[in-house]
């Protein structure tokens, strides 16, 4: 190992390149493996402090965290963790669970010590392309087209089912609206929509532990790249105000943007929050008649219904963070590379922050009612943790040089669409006899309502 390598201060952030490489030839000449890192990180002493009897974690079995019950309703188990083992070592899943509000937000805002690994990493395709999602022209194109079209699209969608006397709101409204919006942002030909939906969802669902979905997702990514390649060339010659055109006009480091970059950018975007928030919000309103009446009476309450939904029934339950290096937190030494499950679902129902946290209360007084800046609190109140929206924006609420934050765009989109629904179907109610419920389709996926039959 070279001297410079020994002097290299810290391993780089994930994917930031290699300070040095050591190649090893096996003693049998068989496996050749390469090391990539800093010899100084080697240590000989123990990291885990021995727990004493009072620290026994006998109120939970680790298998409960992957059980079918947990996939349907994670809240009871998360409560056990939050109230007993706020920093729980999941022996089976080789990870830690962080469940209290202050702890979860402290991890999310600590980029120096904890990193996110992109969906590309789980796919094993880090080299496919660049994530351009932070480029301002892209954000602008996205915001402009969403703001210009959301009301029209919502009207078209609701108009499509309003006269049928009823519909499945979870699919026809909550699932459909974000996809129609995305197609609009990308300015896709109408005929391509079904095919795009198919590929987009396969791509998003594949970044998970399930091997068949992953294969399907890898296929979808290839198909999307092939689909966007000619479109990118065409828009480069003849640009519009859509996201694809914006991508062609970018000049990122490492050469002009490619179809791969566009697909990677789409992959790394949140695909769950708007969908899940709409479905969960309407699920909660339709199953809480008093809250629905309140929202109907005072339309300004729609926004608060949305905010309360993200707190009470977060669609994205958990975000993963990996320790960049050894760091002491919560009374423990967290080793390098450790996986932390930061549970928004548990944090959002932390009784230390919210009174009566398991109740859905539109306009509750202890929830931050506006977009917080740079931290998870404003006006002395905690905001709900919504993982798909990223960290609270540090830019002004109405910035001059860039579009509004994802927090604001998503909130306004959900509010506008819900207002359209209330305008066009004011007597909307749950189909008699229906018993909708929230659940994830699979471990680690969006927790939302997949069937919400309504009548008008």
């Amino acid at each position, binding site marked *: 190992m070279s001297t410079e390598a020994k002097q290299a201060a810290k391993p780089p952030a994930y994917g930031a390149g290699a300070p040095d490489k050591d190649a090893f030839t096996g003693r049998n000449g068989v*496996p050749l493996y390469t090391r990539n890192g800093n010899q100084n990180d080697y240590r000989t*002493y123990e990291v885990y402090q021995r727990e004493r009897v009072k620290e026994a974690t006998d109120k939970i079995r680790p298998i409960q965290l992957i059980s079918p019950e947990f996939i349907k309703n994670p809240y009871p188990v998360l409560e056990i963790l939050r109230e007993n083992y706020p920093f729980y070592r999941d022996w089976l899943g080789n990870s830690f669970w962080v469940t209290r509000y202050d702890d979860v937000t402290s991890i999310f805002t600590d980029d120096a010590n904890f990193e996110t690994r992109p969906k590309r990493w789980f796919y094993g395709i880090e080299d496919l392309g660049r994530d351009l999602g932070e480029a301002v022209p892209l954000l602008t194109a996205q915001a402009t087209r969403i703001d210009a079209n959301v009301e029209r699209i919502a009207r078209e969608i609701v108009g499509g089912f309003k006269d049928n006397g009823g519909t499945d709101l979870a699919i026809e409204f909550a699932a459909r609206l974000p996809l129609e919006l995305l197609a609009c942002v990308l300015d896709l030909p109408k005929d391509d929509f079904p095919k795009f939906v198919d590929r987009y969802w396969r791509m998003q669902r594949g970044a998970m532990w399930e091997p068949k979905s992953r294969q399907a997702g890898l296929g979808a990514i290839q198909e999307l790249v092939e689909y966007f390649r000619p479109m990118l060339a065409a828009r480069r010659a003849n640009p519009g105000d859509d996201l694809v055109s914006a991508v062609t006009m970018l000049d990122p480091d490492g050469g002009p943007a490619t179809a791969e970059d566009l697909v990677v950018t789409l992959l790394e975007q949140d695909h769950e929050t708007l969908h899940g928030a709409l479905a969960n919000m309407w699920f909660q309103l339709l199953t809480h008649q008093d809250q629905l009446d309140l929202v109907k009476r005072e339309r300004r309450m729609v926004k608060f219904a949305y905010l309360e939904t993200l707190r009470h029934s977060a669609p994205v339950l958990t975000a993963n963070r990996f320790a960049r290096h050894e760091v002491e937190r919560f009374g423990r030494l967290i080793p390098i590379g450790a996986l932390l499950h930061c549970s928004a679902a548990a944090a959002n129902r932390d009784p230390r922050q919210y009174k009566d946290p398991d109740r859905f209360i539109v306009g509750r007084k202890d929830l931050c009612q506006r977009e917080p800046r740079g931290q998870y609190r404003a006006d002395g109140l905690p905001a709900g943790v919504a993982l798909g929206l990223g960290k609270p924006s540090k830019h002004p609420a109405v910035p001059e040089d860039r579009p509004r934050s994802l927090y604001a765009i998503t909130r306004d989109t959900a509010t506008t669409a819900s207002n359209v629904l209330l305008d066009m179907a004011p007597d909307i109610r749950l189909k008699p006899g229906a018993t909708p419920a929230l659940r994830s389709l699979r471990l680690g996926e969006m927790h939302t309502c997949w069937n919400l039959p309504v009548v008008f």
Partner: protein
Amino acid sequence: MNTEPFASVFARAIGADAGEAVEKAADGDFQDIFPLMPVGQRVDMGTAPDGTPLIDPRIFFSAEFRRNPWPYYRLMRDHHPVYFNQLNNTYYVTRYDDMTECYFDDIGFNTIPKGSSNGVLGNVTHELSGVEHRRRRNLFGQHLVGKALENRVPAIERLAQEMIDDWSHVDAPWCITNGNVRTIELGQAFADAFPVRVVCDVLGFPKEARGNFVYWYNSIMSGLGASETHKQGMEARQHLEDYVESIVEERRARPTFLYDNAGRNIGKDIISKLCESQVDGDYLSTEEITALIALVVAGGGETTRGTLMNMWYSLLQKPDQAEAALADEDMWDAVFHETLRHSNPIGGQPRHATFDVQIRGTTVPAGSLIEMVNFSGSHDERIFHDADNFNIFRPDLYTGKLLRSGYRKEGKCSHMAFGVGPHMCPGAWISHQEAVIGSKILSRTMKNPRINRDRMPKDIDGVSLAPIGINKTRELWLDYDLA
């Protein structure tokens, strides 16, 4: 213009049935996703477009895997030699050559931080690395090898003989005499208690501690999994620590000694030795001594018990091999090693990547947990011909003196049950003595031993005996002739 309704487009896109299997799956068994297959066959978990068979990580939680793991390990070795299990956040290394490589590189693949013992064992030696590990390991390891071990052989023989002699005048459900035939359950009659007694004796604990010993041992073992029994394990660990503390205080003042069968003083016992040992100029703390002892307690019991049970269960299902072993006591070494190769009681050893490392094309980030699957390494057909078959006559398995410095000798390879390299099981030599001496004495006592099939659990066909899989034989009913 495409007019397909959105609902059907969306249902296809998310694969509407994909989530159902999860919901139906029974807690921790997953039998409706992974039905129990005939031994040697496996559930089809799908195929990638390039033809590579896929692995659903839930298989590792399934009942099917526990009883019939070998086809799945083969799948991993052949197609996913470094497999990332996202549900467990763990990488698995499954080929013999790859894991031996990693075992010897204790800088690149360190043993910390592991926390696998979950606080129940304490900060045990095997979770240290490098020089810290070497110093502590040698402190107690030296008592379990070479001359020190030879000195203990007569005591091991005596303990085994005592237990077997007890059968003649015992009245227990595990020992039934019917005319000339006696039926015993080997576990309760011998294997459960024998290793614990040996460990108790080796550590120099007084005989009165034996009862406590079983309590410590059982509680600590069941507490390792960090579930409902976690607290019980921690309490037992605390109780053990309190007990050791009192003994240590005593022996620091008045060391006790070991004596051979002729009554000659052959040196201080382990605890007395540990009391006067220093590391880095510090005397070992009581906590450190307890951690060493807890490791001997936990490591020296269940493993040897499982080995004894698996040895007899596997051997007696192969009549020709049983005949050879019962006719020639020297064959027991081969039975011991072949059992440990074929169905060893310890599945694997965890390591952590010290650096970002690339093995067989898979990039493993620094800090990741990498499980060296000893089970799989011992069944690697690149090393052992017809590896899934139990055969004490196999020519490719090294059965000589245990090797610490290597794993290949005389053109043969050793099994992976003890691991290799700096962390090779320090109890390997004594467990070998226990299992072989115990089996020899058992074979002298039991004439014409055979499995009582009526009392044994059956496989899914209802006829053949249940496979061992990655479990250990829980009970083993044997018939033998008294004269």
